[in-house]
Protein backbone atom coordinates (compact mmCIF):
# COMPACT_ATOMS: atom_id res chain seq x y z
CA UNK A 1 0.00 0.00 0.00
CA UNK A 2 2.75 2.38 0.91
CA UNK A 3 4.55 1.72 -2.34
CA UNK A 4 1.58 2.59 -4.43
CA UNK A 5 0.43 5.85 -2.85
CA UNK A 6 3.29 7.55 -4.64
CA UNK A 7 2.11 7.56 -8.19
CA UNK A 8 -1.53 8.54 -8.11
CA UNK A 9 -1.62 11.04 -10.90
CA UNK A 10 -3.38 12.03 -14.00
CA UNK A 11 -3.31 8.61 -15.43
CA UNK A 12 -5.56 6.22 -13.56
CA UNK A 13 -4.81 2.58 -14.04
CA UNK A 14 -7.60 0.34 -15.13
CA UNK A 15 -7.81 -1.63 -11.89
CA UNK A 16 -8.44 1.58 -10.04
CA UNK A 17 -11.11 2.58 -12.49
CA UNK A 18 -12.68 -0.82 -12.00
CA UNK A 19 -12.57 -0.43 -8.25
CA UNK A 20 -14.22 2.98 -8.43
CA UNK A 21 -16.90 1.60 -10.71
CA UNK A 22 -17.39 -1.27 -8.34
CA UNK A 23 -17.90 1.12 -5.42
CA UNK A 24 -20.38 3.16 -7.39
CA UNK A 25 -22.32 0.06 -8.26
CA UNK A 26 -22.47 -0.94 -4.65
CA UNK A 27 -23.67 2.51 -3.72
CA UNK A 28 -26.53 2.40 -6.13
CA UNK A 29 -27.41 -1.15 -5.19
CA UNK A 30 -27.99 -0.36 -1.52
CA UNK A 31 -30.32 1.93 0.33
CA UNK A 32 -27.71 2.79 2.90
CA UNK A 33 -24.07 3.70 2.52
CA UNK A 34 -21.92 4.10 5.57
CA UNK A 35 -18.47 5.44 6.20
CA UNK A 36 -16.74 3.34 8.78
CA UNK A 37 -13.54 3.95 10.67
CA UNK A 38 -11.42 0.84 10.95
CA UNK A 39 -8.45 2.30 12.76
CA UNK A 40 -6.41 -0.22 14.68
CA UNK A 41 -8.42 -3.24 13.72
CA UNK A 42 -6.08 -6.10 12.81
CA UNK A 43 -7.00 -7.62 9.49
CA UNK A 44 -7.87 -10.94 11.05
CA UNK A 45 -10.37 -9.21 13.32
CA UNK A 46 -11.71 -7.20 10.43
CA UNK A 47 -12.27 -10.39 8.48
CA UNK A 48 -14.22 -11.80 11.37
CA UNK A 49 -16.33 -8.68 11.69
CA UNK A 50 -17.13 -8.70 8.00
CA UNK A 51 -18.15 -12.29 8.28
CA UNK A 52 -20.42 -11.54 11.20
CA UNK A 53 -22.12 -8.81 9.22
CA UNK A 54 -22.79 -10.97 6.22
CA UNK A 55 -26.39 -10.75 5.13
CA UNK A 56 -26.85 -7.39 6.83
CA UNK A 57 -24.03 -5.32 5.47
CA UNK A 58 -21.03 -5.51 3.19
CA UNK A 59 -17.84 -3.89 4.34
CA UNK A 60 -15.44 -2.86 1.67
CA UNK A 61 -11.98 -1.81 2.65
CA UNK A 62 -10.14 0.23 0.13
CA UNK A 63 -7.96 3.23 -0.18
CA UNK A 64 -9.30 6.55 0.79
CA UNK A 65 -8.50 8.19 -2.50
CA UNK A 66 -10.53 5.59 -4.36
CA UNK A 67 -13.43 6.00 -1.96
CA UNK A 68 -13.11 9.69 -2.33
CA UNK A 69 -13.17 9.54 -6.09
CA UNK A 70 -16.12 7.18 -6.15
CA UNK A 71 -18.12 9.45 -3.87
CA UNK A 72 -17.03 12.52 -5.79
CA UNK A 73 -18.56 11.20 -8.96
CA UNK A 74 -21.82 10.12 -7.29
CA UNK A 75 -24.95 12.15 -6.75
CA UNK A 76 -24.74 15.46 -4.94
CA UNK A 77 -26.25 13.95 -1.81
CA UNK A 78 -23.83 11.08 -1.64
CA UNK A 79 -20.92 13.32 -2.50
CA UNK A 80 -21.24 14.99 0.86
CA UNK A 81 -20.16 11.78 2.52
CA UNK A 82 -16.66 12.70 1.44
CA UNK A 83 -16.08 14.73 4.53
CA UNK A 84 -16.16 11.60 6.66
CA UNK A 85 -13.39 9.94 4.67
CA UNK A 86 -10.23 10.24 6.73
CA UNK A 87 -7.82 8.08 8.60
CA UNK A 88 -8.41 4.38 7.99
CA UNK A 89 -11.76 4.12 6.34
CA UNK A 90 -14.00 1.43 4.94
CA UNK A 91 -17.30 1.62 3.15
CA UNK A 92 -20.35 -0.14 4.36
CA UNK A 93 -23.27 -1.05 2.16
CA UNK A 94 -26.57 -2.21 3.51
CA UNK A 95 -30.29 -2.18 3.09
CA UNK A 96 -30.89 -1.94 6.79
CA UNK A 97 -32.16 1.07 8.65
CA UNK A 98 -29.29 3.36 9.68
CA UNK A 99 -30.21 3.20 13.35
CA UNK A 100 -30.31 -0.54 13.25
CA UNK A 101 -26.98 -0.64 11.46
CA UNK A 102 -25.44 1.47 14.15
CA UNK A 103 -26.77 -0.82 16.82
CA UNK A 104 -25.51 -3.89 15.04
CA UNK A 105 -22.04 -2.44 14.72
CA UNK A 106 -22.00 -1.40 18.34
CA UNK A 107 -22.96 -4.87 19.39
CA UNK A 108 -20.16 -6.25 17.27
CA UNK A 109 -17.50 -4.47 19.24
CA UNK A 110 -14.95 -6.72 20.84
CA UNK A 111 -12.25 -6.14 23.36
CA UNK A 112 -8.67 -6.94 22.63
CA UNK A 113 -5.37 -6.97 24.49
CA UNK A 114 -3.27 -3.87 24.32
CA UNK A 115 -0.04 -4.10 22.39
CA UNK A 116 3.36 -3.09 23.63
CA UNK A 117 3.68 0.62 22.98
CA UNK A 118 -0.07 1.00 22.64
CA UNK A 119 -1.87 3.96 24.10
CA UNK A 120 -4.29 3.22 26.90
CA UNK A 121 -7.78 4.06 25.55
CA UNK A 122 -9.02 4.39 29.12
CA UNK A 123 -7.70 4.01 32.64
CA UNK A 124 -6.45 0.48 33.02
CA UNK A 125 -7.25 -0.95 36.43
CA UNK A 126 -6.08 -4.21 37.91
CA UNK A 127 -8.54 -5.42 40.53
CA UNK A 128 -7.39 -7.01 43.73
CA UNK A 129 -8.19 -10.64 44.29
CA UNK A 130 -6.97 -14.12 43.50
CA UNK A 131 -5.45 -15.03 40.15
CA UNK A 132 -5.21 -18.38 38.44
CA UNK A 133 -1.41 -18.37 38.57
CA UNK A 134 0.46 -20.85 40.69
CA UNK A 135 3.34 -19.33 42.66
CA UNK A 136 6.34 -18.52 40.52
CA UNK A 137 8.25 -15.68 38.93
CA UNK A 138 4.96 -14.06 37.96
CA UNK A 139 4.85 -12.52 41.43
CA UNK A 140 8.00 -10.56 40.75
CA UNK A 141 6.81 -9.59 37.30
CA UNK A 142 3.56 -8.25 38.71
CA UNK A 143 5.37 -6.32 41.37
CA UNK A 144 7.81 -4.81 38.94
CA UNK A 145 4.83 -3.49 36.95
CA UNK A 146 3.53 -1.82 40.08
CA UNK A 147 0.93 -4.43 40.93
CA UNK A 148 1.13 -5.49 44.57
CA UNK A 149 1.09 -9.28 44.46
CA UNK A 150 1.72 -12.07 46.90
CA UNK A 151 0.93 -15.67 47.57
CA UNK A 152 -2.00 -16.87 49.54
CA UNK A 153 -3.27 -20.40 49.87
CA UNK A 154 -0.97 -21.64 47.14
CA UNK A 155 -2.15 -19.07 44.61
CA UNK A 156 -0.90 -15.75 43.43
CA UNK A 157 -3.16 -12.97 44.65
CA UNK A 158 -3.27 -9.31 43.87
CA UNK A 159 -3.40 -7.50 47.17
CA UNK A 160 -4.68 -4.14 46.11
CA UNK A 161 -6.61 -2.63 43.27
CA UNK A 162 -4.28 -0.48 41.20
CA UNK A 163 -4.63 1.79 38.21
CA UNK A 164 -1.62 0.71 36.17
CA UNK A 165 -2.07 3.12 33.29
CA UNK A 166 -4.02 6.31 32.85
CA UNK A 167 -5.98 7.00 29.73
CA UNK A 168 -3.49 8.21 27.15
CA UNK A 169 -0.46 6.59 28.74
CA UNK A 170 1.82 4.51 26.60
CA UNK A 171 1.76 0.92 27.77
CA UNK A 172 5.23 -0.61 27.80
CA UNK A 173 6.04 -4.14 26.71
CA UNK A 174 6.33 -5.48 30.22
CA UNK A 175 2.93 -4.15 31.30
CA UNK A 176 1.30 -5.17 28.04
CA UNK A 177 2.46 -8.70 28.57
CA UNK A 178 1.27 -8.76 32.18
CA UNK A 179 -2.13 -7.39 31.17
CA UNK A 180 -2.43 -10.01 28.49
CA UNK A 181 -1.64 -12.74 31.00
CA UNK A 182 -4.20 -11.30 33.39
CA UNK A 183 -6.66 -11.37 30.50
CA UNK A 184 -7.28 -7.66 30.78
CA UNK A 185 -8.26 -6.37 27.37
CA UNK A 186 -8.40 -2.61 27.46
CA UNK A 187 -8.70 -2.06 23.74
CA UNK A 188 -12.11 -1.91 22.18
CA UNK A 189 -12.21 -2.97 18.59
CA UNK A 190 -15.08 -2.22 16.36
CA UNK A 191 -16.30 -0.72 13.16
CA UNK A 192 -16.76 2.90 13.91
CA UNK A 193 -19.76 4.09 11.95
CA UNK A 194 -19.11 7.76 11.28
CA UNK A 195 -22.10 8.46 9.07
CA UNK A 196 -24.72 6.74 7.01
CA UNK A 197 -26.36 8.03 3.89
CA UNK A 198 -29.89 6.85 3.27
CA UNK A 199 -32.55 8.24 0.96
CA UNK A 200 -31.19 11.72 0.78
CA UNK A 201 -30.37 12.03 4.45
CA UNK A 202 -27.00 11.77 6.13
CA UNK A 203 -27.15 10.36 9.65
CA UNK A 204 -24.13 11.17 11.72
CA UNK A 205 -23.05 8.98 14.56
CA UNK A 206 -24.32 11.34 17.25
CA UNK A 207 -27.81 11.03 15.83
CA UNK A 208 -27.47 7.32 15.40
CA UNK A 209 -26.38 6.75 18.96
CA UNK A 210 -29.81 6.56 20.51
CA UNK A 211 -30.20 6.95 24.21
CA UNK A 212 -32.96 4.48 24.89
CA UNK A 213 -33.33 5.51 28.48
CA UNK A 214 -34.14 9.02 27.36
CA UNK A 215 -36.93 7.68 25.19
CA UNK A 216 -38.23 5.57 28.01
CA UNK A 217 -38.19 8.66 30.17
CA UNK A 218 -40.08 10.58 27.51
CA UNK A 219 -42.68 7.85 27.25
CA UNK A 220 -43.11 7.81 30.98
CA UNK A 221 -43.51 11.53 31.01
CA UNK A 222 -45.97 11.49 28.13
CA UNK A 223 -48.05 8.85 29.84
CA UNK A 224 -48.04 10.81 33.06
CA UNK A 225 -49.05 13.96 31.27
CA UNK A 226 -51.87 12.20 29.51
CA UNK A 227 -53.05 10.77 32.76
CA UNK A 228 -52.77 14.05 34.63
CA UNK A 229 -54.60 15.90 31.90
CA UNK A 230 -57.44 13.45 31.70
CA UNK A 231 -57.95 13.32 35.44
CA UNK A 232 -57.49 17.02 36.04
CA UNK A 233 -59.88 17.82 33.22
CA UNK A 234 -62.20 15.06 34.41
CA UNK A 235 -62.32 13.50 30.98
CA UNK A 236 -64.01 10.16 31.37
CA UNK A 237 -62.57 7.27 29.42
CA UNK A 238 -62.18 3.61 30.08
CA UNK A 239 -58.66 4.21 31.21
CA UNK A 240 -59.48 6.96 33.65
CA UNK A 241 -62.98 6.38 34.89
CA UNK A 242 -61.87 4.25 37.79
CA UNK A 243 -59.49 6.91 38.98
CA UNK A 244 -62.08 9.62 38.50
CA UNK A 245 -64.55 7.72 40.62
CA UNK A 246 -61.95 7.10 43.24
CA UNK A 247 -61.00 10.73 43.18
CA UNK A 248 -64.58 11.89 43.62
CA UNK A 249 -65.16 9.38 46.38
CA UNK A 250 -62.01 10.41 48.13
CA UNK A 251 -62.89 14.08 47.80
CA UNK A 252 -66.27 13.51 49.31
CA UNK A 253 -64.72 11.57 52.11
CA UNK A 254 -62.12 14.27 52.70
CA UNK A 255 -64.78 16.92 52.73
CA UNK A 256 -67.03 14.99 55.04
CA UNK A 257 -64.34 14.21 57.56
CA UNK A 258 -62.48 17.50 57.37
CA UNK A 259 -65.64 19.56 57.58
CA UNK A 260 -67.00 17.16 60.17
CA UNK A 261 -70.20 16.66 58.31
CA UNK A 262 -72.31 14.40 60.42
CA UNK A 263 -73.68 11.76 58.11
CA UNK A 264 -74.30 8.09 58.65
CA UNK A 265 -71.70 7.26 56.03
CA UNK A 266 -68.91 8.88 57.91
CA UNK A 267 -69.98 8.81 61.50
CA UNK A 268 -67.72 5.86 62.17
CA UNK A 269 -64.73 7.76 60.97
CA UNK A 270 -65.66 10.86 62.89
CA UNK A 271 -66.00 8.81 66.05
CA UNK A 272 -62.68 7.21 65.34
CA UNK A 273 -61.09 10.58 64.70
CA UNK A 274 -62.43 11.99 67.97
CA UNK A 275 -61.30 8.93 69.83
CA UNK A 276 -57.82 9.12 68.36
CA UNK A 277 -57.59 12.78 69.25
CA UNK A 278 -58.68 12.00 72.75
CA UNK A 279 -56.07 9.28 73.04
CA UNK A 280 -53.27 11.45 71.80
CA UNK A 281 -54.23 14.32 74.04
CA UNK A 282 -54.50 11.89 76.92
CA UNK A 283 -51.06 10.65 76.13
CA UNK A 284 -49.60 14.12 76.17
CA UNK A 285 -51.32 14.86 79.44
CA UNK A 286 -50.27 11.64 81.07
CA UNK A 287 -46.67 12.20 80.14
CA UNK A 288 -46.79 15.27 82.31
CA UNK A 289 -48.86 13.78 85.07
CA UNK A 290 -49.83 10.16 85.12
CA UNK A 291 -52.68 10.93 87.49
CA UNK A 292 -54.29 13.34 85.08
CA UNK A 293 -55.66 10.45 83.13
CA UNK A 294 -57.68 7.62 84.48
CA UNK A 295 -55.93 4.31 84.18
CA UNK A 296 -58.80 3.05 82.14
CA UNK A 297 -56.76 4.16 79.21
Amino acid at each position, binding site marked *: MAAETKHHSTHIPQWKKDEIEDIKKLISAHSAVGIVGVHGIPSSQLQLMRKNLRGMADVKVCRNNLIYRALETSSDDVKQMNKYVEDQTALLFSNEDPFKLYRILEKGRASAPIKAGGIAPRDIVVQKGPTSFPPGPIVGELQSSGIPAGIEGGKVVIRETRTVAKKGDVVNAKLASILARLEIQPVELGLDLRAVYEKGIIYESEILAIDETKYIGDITQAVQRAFNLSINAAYPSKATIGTLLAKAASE*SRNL*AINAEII*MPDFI*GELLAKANTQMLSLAQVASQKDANAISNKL
Partner: protein
Amino acid sequence: MEYVYAALLLHSAGKKVTEEGIADVIKAAGLEVDVVRAKALVSALEGVNIEEAISKAAFAAPAPTAAPA
Protein backbone atom coordinates in the same frame (compact mmCIF):
# COMPACT_ATOMS: atom_id res chain seq x y z
CA MET B 1 -72.94 10.16 50.79
CA GLU B 2 -75.62 11.61 48.56
CA TYR B 3 -75.59 14.88 50.42
CA VAL B 4 -71.87 15.23 50.26
CA TYR B 5 -71.86 14.51 46.54
CA ALA B 6 -74.59 17.05 46.12
CA ALA B 7 -72.47 19.59 47.96
CA LEU B 8 -69.44 18.76 45.84
CA LEU B 9 -71.49 19.06 42.70
CA LEU B 10 -72.82 22.46 43.70
CA HIS B 11 -69.42 23.65 44.71
CA SER B 12 -67.75 22.48 41.55
CA ALA B 13 -70.57 24.05 39.57
CA GLY B 14 -69.57 27.31 41.14
CA LYS B 15 -72.74 27.57 43.23
CA LYS B 16 -73.04 28.27 46.91
CA VAL B 17 -73.91 25.20 48.91
CA THR B 18 -77.33 26.01 50.31
CA GLU B 19 -80.13 23.94 51.72
CA GLU B 20 -82.28 24.64 48.69
CA GLY B 21 -79.48 23.80 46.29
CA ILE B 22 -78.89 20.50 47.98
CA ALA B 23 -82.58 19.77 48.17
CA ASP B 24 -82.94 20.41 44.43
CA VAL B 25 -80.07 18.15 43.52
CA ILE B 26 -81.16 15.40 45.87
CA LYS B 27 -84.65 15.55 44.45
CA ALA B 28 -83.29 15.44 40.91
CA ALA B 29 -81.53 12.26 41.84
CA GLY B 30 -84.91 10.81 42.65
CA LEU B 31 -84.56 10.87 46.41
CA GLU B 32 -86.71 12.39 49.10
CA VAL B 33 -85.01 15.22 50.87
CA ASP B 34 -84.11 14.80 54.51
CA VAL B 35 -84.17 18.37 55.74
CA VAL B 36 -82.16 17.62 58.83
CA ARG B 37 -79.33 16.21 56.79
CA ALA B 38 -79.39 19.03 54.33
CA LYS B 39 -79.40 21.56 57.15
CA ALA B 40 -76.67 19.74 59.03
CA LEU B 41 -74.56 19.63 55.92
CA VAL B 42 -74.89 23.30 55.21
CA SER B 43 -74.21 24.12 58.83
CA ALA B 44 -71.12 21.92 58.87
CA LEU B 45 -69.79 23.63 55.75
CA GLU B 46 -70.18 27.09 57.20
CA GLY B 47 -66.83 28.74 57.27
CA VAL B 48 -65.17 25.75 55.66
CA ASN B 49 -62.86 26.24 52.70
CA ILE B 50 -64.30 23.48 50.59
CA GLU B 51 -61.45 23.48 48.11
CA GLU B 52 -59.02 22.89 50.90
CA ALA B 53 -61.15 20.38 52.73
CA ILE B 54 -61.52 18.39 49.54
CA SER B 55 -57.89 18.08 48.83
CA LYS B 56 -56.64 17.60 52.34
CA ALA B 57 -56.44 13.92 52.96
CA ALA B 58 -58.85 13.23 55.73
CA PHE B 59 -58.09 11.44 58.89
CA ALA B 60 -57.74 7.94 57.65
CA ALA B 61 -58.61 5.95 60.60
CA PRO B 62 -60.31 2.82 59.67
CA ALA B 63 -60.87 1.46 56.29
CA PRO B 64 -64.55 1.15 56.96
CA THR B 65 -65.50 3.24 53.99
CA ALA B 66 -65.43 0.05 52.10
CA ALA B 67 -68.17 -1.28 54.25
CA PRO B 68 -70.83 1.43 54.43
CA ALA B 69 -73.16 0.87 51.55
